[in-house]
């Protein structure tokens, strides 16, 4: 089977076409827009953080199957995790896709993200797989550095 076709597995198609947590969050929450200028895709990530823990996460917008599936899985994976755990997971994911670093399956979350590893072969598509993650990290870092209480827009 070819490389790209391998990426488009059942789970990716399923999440891409039937995204989970595909809605806005009720207040209080933080939201941020991620824009992939290459293709015009726009995703908006919504997250509620309490005591350095992600209590809820959702997204809205439109994108390709890879970006939609990545966002959908993200919303499931990060729920209940601490901001630190999410940051470490993203660091591993980003290093694997962008720098080609080995991706060790150390947690169930890592295992779920492994379906995107083939995307590293397609530099133009790496941003699709990381768009929602980059957007979430922007919120979490902003939130952490400014010590902002959860806010609505």
């Amino acid at each position, binding site marked *: 089977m*070819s*490389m*790209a*076709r391998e*990426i*488009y597995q059942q789970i990716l*198609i399923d999440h891409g*076409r039937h995204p989970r947590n595909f809605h806005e969050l009720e207040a209080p929450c933080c939201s941020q827009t991620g824009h992939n200028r*290459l*293709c*015009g*895709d726009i995703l908006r990530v919504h997250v509620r953080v309490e005591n350095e823990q992600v209590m809820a996460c959702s997204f809205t917008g*439109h*994108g*390709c*199957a*890879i970006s939609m599936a990545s966002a959908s899985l993200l919303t499931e994976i990060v729920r209940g995790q601490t901001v630190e755990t999410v940051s470490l997971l993203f660091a591993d994911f980003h290093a694997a896709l962008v720098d080609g670093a080995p991706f060790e399956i150390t947690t169930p979350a890592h295992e779920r993200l492994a379906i995107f590893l083939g995307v590293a072969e*397609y530099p*133009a*598509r790496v941003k*699709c797989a990381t768009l929602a993650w980059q957007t979430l990290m922007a919120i979490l870092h902003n939130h952490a550095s400014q010590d902002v209480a959860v806010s609505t827009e």
Partner: protein
Amino acid sequence: MTDVCISVSNARKADFPIYKKMSSAFSYLDNAATTHSPQVVIQAVSQYYEEVHSNPHSASHTLSERTTGQYYKARETVARFIAAPGPEQIIFCHSTTMAINMVAMSYLQPRIQAGDEILVTAMEHHANLLPWQQLAKRHQATLRVVPLTPTGEIDQEAYHQMLSTRTVFVALTHVSNVLGTINPVTSLVASAKSYGIPVLLDGAQAISHTPVDVTALGCDFYVFSGHKAYGPTGIGVLYASASAMEKMTPCIFGGGMIEAVSYTESSWLPNQVATFEPGTPNVSGAIGLAAALDYLTQIGWEAIVSHEQALLQYALSALDRVPQLQIYGRASDRVGVLSFTLADIHAHDITSLLNDQQVAVRGGHHCAMPLIHELGLVSVTRASLGVYNDEQDIDALVNGLHDICRVFQL
């Protein structure tokens, strides 16, 4: 008929070194973006570098003289190819984009006034939209956009209604890079000229698919790029009629264009091609482009058009059999540019999966964002044909699309 089509184009592929590098199953269908170059073009460029390469215009030594001669000869070839009155109407520049910007700055900027109107169509590439949009903004002029019909053709009634004494410039694409439509430029130019309005035709998508006669068209400017006509990148052509060139003011300054220079003042040559080509030009690009145009001339328009039209019809009927596929642009007079959507699958998913099947197509807004948005879309996938394509390429595309339907469980 079918057999002839395949054998002719297979022979054609042998002219293009890219097909020796890629596997025999490779289907290049991104010709509206960039066409590959035949061996004769690559050879002309490398021969120039191996045997001639020098600086034109100074001509202090043998190689410089030869460079000047070959550069001039390339200008003659271009003039002949588009039936311009002579090489003195052919300005070489980087690209179509550069050529249009030059016309906006050199021709229209010095004379545009507040309240004036510039006319473009809804199917313009960004290259033939932004220079006019920005010029209009800077001078409190109005950019008017001629709408399209549902089949993706210029609404000619609207066009005629929008032409008026306020119109100071008309900029039209000859062929749409998204819809494939060949616009009826002869009559569109004639209508504008009846008001005395200068017209620019963007020939980027037309130049390698349909014969162009700028003299018969009567347009003031005709522009195109080398890399969409089987030539090199970085070379473009700005044809300006003699009367239009007279009204141009240089917008880029430097060596090669001047008559006399002091620290405070300069005077430049009376309007001629050199006035608009300051700096050392892209000689190898011009030579490569001339070789590409000679290659097309050698094949002949009749063979090119009949081959591409037959393949286009084959592609249209094959694509129409793919479920949930919609083609955008149904003009009767068109080239082999096929933009489509497949169900609600994102264009970039389609291009990645087709790339895996060794089918090269482009996905995105194709530098025509307003048009794509007007179609209610974010992006489309585009397959575009060239002289070397054959039915096998179309079959590979269609098989790839059927496979995508399976992956996405349509």
